[in-house]
């Protein structure tokens, strides 16, 4: 009998606590697979700050470091400066990275810290129960935007990848999605490339991954995949914003 699908060694046996239909799980798996395929699981140190993925330290099968809300890039800076030969990554939500942790992510990029950020953008605060995030779309309802997000009082959703791509130290910046199979394949490629950039010592890399939160979007898992495609993709265009020049 041939095996066609199996667990990745990049993840532990622990069962995810994520809601049904949440794509955090898919993203975990992609990161785990990439660490194994690049042969760096034993050198990996992950940083998981507050958010639905705060328990990621139980899931990734490598050394893990918890961080306060938004501070993962600072914690990762400390780790990577002590262990320059290790492979360090942060796994952050959009409330975490695009709100409370903007200073930390911008300056990690600005210094060109040699770690990789996995940025999960689900346009909402998941863990605390669906409050508005800086990435929440105009008109999208959130528990702190019960009438839908209003640009006049809350501004326009932040496009972090575009912003970070203006920083020289951020040598790899790509936005991907995991709402369909083609997207998942591309997402994995981008994650792999981001880690390769780190391993080559070229600078800071970030992959923004559009992700679902059926629970706080208040729709079913299947509807949420469609909602992501129809609402998030037009505002958050997929693609690469920065990549190191070949041969560099």
């Amino acid at each position, binding site marked *: 009998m041939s095996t066609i699908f199996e667990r990745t060694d990049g993840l532990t046996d622990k069962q995810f606590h994520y809601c049904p239909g949440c794509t955090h799980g898919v993203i975990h798996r992609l990161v785990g697979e990439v660490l194994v395929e690049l042969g760096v699981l034993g050198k990996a140190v992950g940083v998981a700050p507050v958010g639905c993925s705060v328990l990621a330290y139980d899931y990734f099968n490598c050394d893990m*470091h918890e961080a306060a809300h938004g501070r993962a890039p600072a914690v990762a*800076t400390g*780790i990577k400066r002590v262990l320059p030969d290790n492979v360090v990554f942060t796994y952050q939500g959009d409330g975490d990275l695009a709100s409370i942790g903007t200073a930390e992510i911008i300056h990690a990029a600005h210094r060109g810290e040699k770690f990789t950020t996995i940025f999960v953008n689900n346009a909402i605060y998941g863990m605390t129960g669906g409050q508005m995030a800086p990435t929440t779309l105009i008109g999208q309802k959130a528990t702190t935007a019960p009438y839908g997000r209003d640009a006049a009082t809350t501004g326009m959703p932040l496009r972090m990848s575009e912003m970070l791509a203006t920083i020289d130290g951020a040598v790899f910046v790509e936005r991907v999605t995991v709402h369909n199979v083609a997207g998942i394949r591309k997402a994995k490629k981008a994650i792999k490339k981001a880690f390769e950039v780190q391993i080559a010592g070229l600078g800071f890399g970030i992959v923004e991954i559009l992700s679902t939160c059926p629970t706080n979007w208040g729709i079913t898992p299947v509807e949420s995949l469609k909602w992501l495609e129809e609402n998030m993709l037009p505002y958050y265009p997929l693609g690469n914003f920065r990549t190191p020049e070949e041969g560099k």
Partner: protein
Amino acid sequence: MAKVLMKGNEAIGAAAIKAGCKFFFGYPITPQNELPEFMSRELPKIDGVFVQAESEVAAINMIYGAAGAGARTMTSSSSPGMALKQEGISYIAGAELPCVIVNISRGGPGLGGIQPSQADYFQSTRGGGNGDYRHLVYAPSTLQEAVDLTIEAFDIADYYRNPVIVLGDGMIGQMMEPVEFNEPKKRDLPAKDWATTGTEDKRRPNIINSLALDPAELEKHNIKLDNKYKAMEENEVRYEMYKTEGAELIFVAYGTTARIVKNAVDALEAEGIKAGLIRPITLWPFPNKAFNEIPTAKALVSVEMSMGQMIDDVKIANNGKLPVHFYGRTGGMIPTPEAIVEKAKEILGGGK
């Protein structure tokens, strides 16, 4: 080793390097700037790392990461910056990591001033961060003591897996004195087998963490931490008794203020008035037992460069036995020996 004349901030930096600290993360603020500047100059020479963080919040979280990765690491700041570091200090204490944090404190509240002050006593000893945690606070009174305590702080931090604060007022940071760099007393330090250095596919993953969602688990963790704090109270209390034998009036003062009080004690002695000084060297744990060693005392007076913060601990240690008085200058104003002598006479004169 020969003595060298150094500025306090630089001497503390040199002490950290002597203790094996190769990773420094900080953010500029007066009156501690010479410390990060010194580290930015010296650490690259020994293959160390200096990072000027984007904020004190980031600096302390870099410390959290570096300490988790097993390094001896230090940050320094001054009062408003220390306020920002409290989040990280709470996490570091919760996750049980060692590090050394220097506060060259200035007047407050708010932006306050940049002159020496001891108004961060509460912040330092009560924990400005959230949760049930404690950390040692060393309050050096001379530069030599600042050097010795900084070197030792790294061992203490490693031994207990806990942050240690070195609290100097602006005077300690700015003045110059001759110092020498001595080896600390040898301690058996536990291996850092908990550090997140990568599994190398040889062991189970290490996790650095302060989260415990299950209340029973968190209570267990809190009790474990508390046992550690109790061991510190048992073993790490330090204080100096200055001319307390036979003294009727006992001053309590730390840091620079203690130096001034010593002058006042000497001046009172010359006038035939018996006064002495309890000088806490650790502010937490507070030297409660020193207050059992002053049988002739009739009154206590806490002298501080603040409106009265340590006095709360003096009252707890005194436990209602003696009247407790206060004398303080604040905002960057320095108490004079003459004013302290006056206060002593007023108290002993039975004015109150």
